[in-house]
């Protein structure tokens, strides 16, 4: 009995993600703090924050409706489902719920929409502002994401992420192929935008002019806020994980054998932490873009993705 079932693997992914996420965030914040010459709150600070928030009672401001309490659960559900679906540890997937790209994306968007509605619910100027910006970015990101993965899916002939990753594990050449590179870079930018990192959004600011995500959750408190935070962290984990697995597929478990899974877990943990540090380090040297410059960035990434597709058609990435 040294193999897992598919549900088992998914469980591992979900639990693992839940456990790892705060650490990842902590590592990123700590790296950044150190590079900026601050002491930083330590790697486990996010853990403590979440525990504290879960303990505190949430406030319901007058005139706000059900979204205030519904959104956090919706968001975290969507994030968890995504974590379960995307191939983080292994490339196996349920028969009835394949990790189909479009399903994953729309589940993510469900969370996005919930957040945006929360922002409007508050009935304040900030909430609406954040919501509006958030949706604008999301709308502009979607083409990049779809087209990029479309490019990656062409050689494999399916839109199932696990199949794509598996294929890249099988044939390392495709990893360094121009198509692959273009697509991954494009996807990378999209992920940064989707998860609200610099240069698109600064997660650690509360400056009216710049904040997007924070503006929406401004009115939330207590466990509502906790779920919101965890939910958005999980998004980061899942998407970053997917990205690194597409970029550096090695170590991903293609079988369900215990050893393979363990190796996969170790691989993803290492990859994520390294990636996290890199992102954080990068953010130190990046300034946030003006909101109205963001479309240019996204357009750029979209062009890359588009080139990737046409390339894979015309230069022929025959399977």
């Amino acid at each position, binding site marked *: 009995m040294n193999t897992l079932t598919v549900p088992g693997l998914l469980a591992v992914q*979900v639990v693992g993600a839940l456990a790892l996420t705060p650490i990842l965030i902590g590592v990123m914040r700590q790296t950044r703090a150190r590079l900026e010459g601050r002491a930083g709150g330590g790697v486990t600070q996010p853990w403590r924050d979440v525990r504290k928030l*879960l*303990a*505190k*009672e*949430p*406030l*319901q*401001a*007058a005139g706000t*409706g*059900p979204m205030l309490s519904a959104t956090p*659960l919706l968001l*975290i*559900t969507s994030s968890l*489902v995504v974590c379960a679906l995307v191939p983080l540890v292994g490339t196996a997937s*349920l028969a*009835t719920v394949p990790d*189909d790209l479009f*399903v994953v994306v*729309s*589940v993510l*968007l*469900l969370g*996005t*929409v919930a957040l945006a509605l929360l922002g*409007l*619910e508050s*009935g*304040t*100027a900030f*909430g*609406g502002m954040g*919501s*509006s*910006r958030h*949706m*604008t970015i*999301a*709308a*502009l*990101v*979607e*083409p990049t994401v*779809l*087209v990029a993965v*479309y490019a990656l899916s*062409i050689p494999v002939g*399916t*839109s199932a992420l696990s199949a794509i990753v598996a294929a890249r594990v099988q044939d390392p050449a495709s990893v360094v192929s121009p198509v692959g590179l273009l697509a991954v870079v494009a996807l990378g930018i999209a992920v940064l935008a989707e998860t609200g990192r610099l240069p698109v959004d600064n997660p650690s600011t509360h400056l009216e002019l710049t904040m997007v995500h924070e503006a929406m959750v401004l009115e939330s408190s207590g*466990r509502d806020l906790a779920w919101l935070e965890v939910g958005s962290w999980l998004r980061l984990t899942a998407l970053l994980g997917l990205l690194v697995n597409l970029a550096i597929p090695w170590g991903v478990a293609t079988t369900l054998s215990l050893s393979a899974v363990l190796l996969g877990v170790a691989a993803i943990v290492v990859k994520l932490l390294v990636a996290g540090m890199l992102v954080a380090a990068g953010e130190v040297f990046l300034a946030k873009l003006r*909101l*109205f410059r963001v*479309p240019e960035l996204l357009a750029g990434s979209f062009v890359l993705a588009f080139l990737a*597709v*046409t390339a894979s*058609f*015309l230069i*022929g990435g*025959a399977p």
Partner: protein
Amino acid sequence: MSGVSAGIATQLVLAAVALVAATLAPARMRSHVAGAACAGLGVAGAVTGLVAMSGGNPGAGLQIPVTLPLGLPLEPLLLAPDRLGGVFLALAGAVAAVTAVYGIGYATGPAASRSGWAAFAVFILGMQLVPAASDVVSFLVAWETMAIGSTVLLLADHGARSEVVRATQWYAVMTHASFLLLLAGFAVLVAETGGTSFATIAAAGVSGTSASVAFVLLLGGFATKAGLVPVHVWLPRAHPEAPSHVSAAMSAAMVKMGVYGVLLAALRLLPQGPAWWAGLLLVLALASALYGILQASVATDLKRLLAYSTTENVGLILVAVAVALLLRGAGDEPVADVALTAALLLTVSHAAFKTVLFLGAGAILHATGERDLDRLGGLAAVMPTTSLTFGVAALGAAALPVTSGFAAEWVLLQSLIHGDGRDDVALAILLPITVAIVALTAGLALLTFVKAYGIAFLARPRSPAAEHGHEGGRSMRAAMLLGAAAVVGLGLAPGPVAAGLAEAVGASGIEVVGVLGVSLPAVDALLDPVALILLAAIVLAPVVVVHLAAARRAPRRDVDLAWGCGGVRVSPRMQYTATSYAEPLVRVFDDALQPSRDVEVSHADESRYLVSQVRFRQRVTDLVADRAYEPIVRATLGIGEGARRIQNGSIHRYLGFSFTALVLVLLAVTW
């Protein structure tokens, strides 16, 4: 007499009943009687459609023994929907039934007058006869019946608002243009084949130039009805002005007759068309999808927003059709079938959610008298049912799980990314563009409907009218719930629906999997919403446990302000409005939308350094209408004015005309 013909006969009878009811019933109970009759008519249509859809014997139908009065060598009128027709008949019937029920409670004033209900009955009948017609003449008759009915309905409020008349003029002219184009197109086909029944035309297999001429003419006609860019201009004018149950029927069902027409032309009458037909269609459809949603995302008039989103959705539907044709041309049958199925799924799903959305908009109008999002808000508290149904429908429009919109768009994308462009340069260029535009459209749709729902129902009322909103009557709520149920139902059970629809267009390789999921072996993809929900429930369970535990320890606390800090609650006018919500987007697409902004700064009397108030107004108009249509209209009227000089009253000039004619004729004969 087969089931189908019985069904059609029933519809004719019921229509007559509805007419009688509308004209004879006393005003007090007119809406109930006539509405019920119309609903019955709709149901009859839906049932007939389903029967016809499930095959039966094609060609069987009600043969009306009218050899046309002309001793024409035309074949007799035949009302016999084929399977494709059945789909649209069922769709039109269902929408008609729901909207009629809604109308019982909603219709007031002119809309509830004799002519109002009579026109509604005529409109529904025409709409249901279009897909039933299976020869040119009866098709055109049904088409025009539909046009007349809708025009009269559009006029309901003509006495109150002058825009109604303007909108109707636009609608009438565009509709007539579409009819004339169809007449021309069919005339070409009839002239080629010498028969008027679709069977004859299809059997003759027209090809070559005349086929292309016919196709382009027909496409023009149907596109106008379907509201494709650039012939969409009537849509954003007509839909807002019509009574809401009428807008719902128009947008959800009537517009689809344009889609049906395209399918009729491309699949039944003129199969084996050259690739450029599909290319042309694809370009138009993509343009419509993008332009439509762009306009919708910046619109602040709720019904105008919905109208533009109709253009977008029709665009998507026809994208699917065009891709299907392209792939078929490239010999990629299996994927083409998937695309075709996607087209029908999109059609059905749009019918479902757009009905609810328009009915919801009607409920809002009914309750607050407002269509302008900037003056709405906080309706969720006062209109729970409407809020719920509108929300569900909005999810559908945004193509989010687990609604009909999601399933449909999923199938579409599957067919798109599996189209093989490796050995076909055209496909290699077109498919990525298509995917990109569809994706962008989906993204913008997301924003649009978050805006529509969030601004209208969440937050705090932006006007006293919105504050005093109230729920509509029972029939209105019932209709909306019915529609919302359809949206979710279709979303949960895409499998059987897709299979049935695929059956109807003879598309193979669409299978039901799992509980109600759909599987596309051709592109090995699979979608089982029920399973997805189960998964979500499983992962949610522990979270809920923790949540409840925490809730017991620290219950929710009601406060006046989340961020008190001694501050006071800001007035609702500080909230984001629909306009400001779309502002970033307007900036991003500044070139495409060309908004007109004007800022008036009025200074305080004391000093011009003190600003007393700043007015900011931003209008986004329809560029196509402004740049393309207005000049034409102006030019035509100019010609009319100029022509008046011909008839200047001088008998000498008149004699001159005759004289010239005489001389010319003499010259002509001598030469």
